[in-house]
């Protein structure tokens, strides 16, 4: 259970002016819930993830995970970024083991666990390869394994498929759902793709920029397991339509006002 309570974050820009990145965000995320965050660039989605991760301190408000307030980085969270950020000098296996090495948690079973995750992500046979020998999609799979190795309760994903081509991206979304199904986690997933957001999520959090606020939270009433055939369903269409309206409707209105 992640509770975000009236959270605000203000950055001081170089010229000394205050920039409000997030304003008055409140959100409660249930255990094992898949939440996607969509919104235009600069609406503070990534900042929100970093606040939940404890990498940034909030300006006002509070975040708690399982009742405990977040005051700094905690080890029960896994992070996946837009770029795989694998270590170029380490094999895929060692990359997956990296968080355990950092936290001195390597045990006899660690390698077995890593191999299991690598197999789960469909990378069997690539354990001893180096990152540059893998395609972008495969590198990102390895990055997901790395995030899962510490068995975190929460997974924070910052546009993890943003740098992949469209086909790989669709494939990866389904893969992620499959992995999530086998290893249930609470996932906060930032994306720019509206269809991706709807396909993956239990609830889609739509954010609006300047200052970053939650425009609306949309329930996705689609059955699981999800697949791309559901895109044709009216529930799917309703969700994407509503999200588009929230993101672009505002913008259209604003443009009209300026004109």
């Amino acid at each position, binding site marked *: 259970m992640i509770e975000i309570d009236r959270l605000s974050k203000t950055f001081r820009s170089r010229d000394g002016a205050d920039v409000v990145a997030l304003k008055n965000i409140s959100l409660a995320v249930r255990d094992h819930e898949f939440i996607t965050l969509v919104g235009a660039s600069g609406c503070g989605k990534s900042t929100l993830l*970093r606040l939940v*991760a*404890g*990498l940034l301190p909030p300006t006002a408000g509070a975040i708690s995970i399982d009742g405990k307030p977040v005051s*700094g*980085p*905690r*080890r029960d*969270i896994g*992070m996946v*970024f*837009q*770029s795989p*950020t694998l*270590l*170029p*000098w380490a094999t895929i296996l060692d990359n997956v083991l*990296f*968080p355990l*090495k*950092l*936290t001195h948690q390597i045990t006899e079973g660690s390698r077995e666990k890593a191999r299991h995750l690598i197999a789960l992500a469909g990378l069997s046979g690539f354990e001893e390869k*180096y990152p*540059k020998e893998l395609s972008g999609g495969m590198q990102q799979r390895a990055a997901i394994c790395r995030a899962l190795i*510490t068995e975190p309760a929460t997974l924070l994903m910052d546009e993890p498929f943003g740098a992949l081509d469209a086909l790989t991206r669709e494939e990866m979304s389904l893969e992620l759902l499959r992995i999530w199904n086998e290893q249930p986690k609470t996932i906060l997933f930032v994306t720019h793709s509206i269809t991706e957001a709807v396909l993956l999520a239990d609830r889609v959090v739509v954010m609006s920029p300047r200052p970053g606020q939650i425009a609306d939270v949309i329930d996705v009433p689609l059955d699981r397991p999800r697949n791309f055939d559901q895109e044709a369903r009216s529930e799917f269409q309703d969700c994407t339509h509503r999200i588009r309206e929230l993101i672009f409707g505002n913008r259209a209105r604003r443009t009209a006002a300026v004109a």
Partner: protein
Amino acid sequence: MATAREERQRSLSLRRFVLSSRDVLLPAAVLVLLVVMWEGSVHLFDIKPFILPAPSAIWTATTEIWSTVMGHTMATLNTVLIGFLVSIAVSLPLAVLITSSPYVSTAVYPLLVLTQSIPKVALAPILVIALGANELPRIVVTFLVAFFPLVISMAAGLLSVPSDLIELGRSYRASRFQELYRIRLPYAVPFIFSGLKVAIALAVVGAVVGEFVAADRGLGYLITSSTAFFKTPLAFGAMILLSLMGIVLFQIVVVIERVFFPWSSGQETVVV
């Protein structure tokens, strides 16, 4: 089937051999040609050996006192290696310090640039007075010449880590030391090696500068002492040995990188 495939394999490896030997043989042939032309024109135009000695004269002058020449070579090599190692030992902590805080960087960078703007040839005689006529001033000059590009490339390497990766480390509450040891330093390896390659070449220059000013041994000393007596062939020999030393040391650094950090070679960035 099998024979056809073998045939193809053989022609492929032959092709590869021809291609690789072309890369070696062609420049070697050009070099030999130049030496022959050099030798020929010295005899043809009757050029005095103290102005431009023929390659054969250089060979004779150098090999007839080979053991003495080798002694001088070893002395220079000694200075080069010690100076080089000292500059590594100083550069690494310095680069870590510079990159650890913007304050340190602001405080130290101008001083580094200052040490570089001092002409080492001018500094060498002063160092001899201060440190005495021994090995020490030569090592100090070598170090001063070699360490700057090393610090700059190491610092650039330590700062080249993607910020996401640093965040990843922080999210697992990695200590500053772990961040340095597990993430920043390995990331800096390609940069460090491009710095090392520049530094080893400069270390040879530094050692010779030191020997020019005050030495009773070394190839730099051999050049000054032999030119003083118009023994130009021997000076040429010492010069050729110096460049050979530079090439060999450079290649040793290249080989060390390839063997111990195979993922590093090929993605280096030239910083200096």
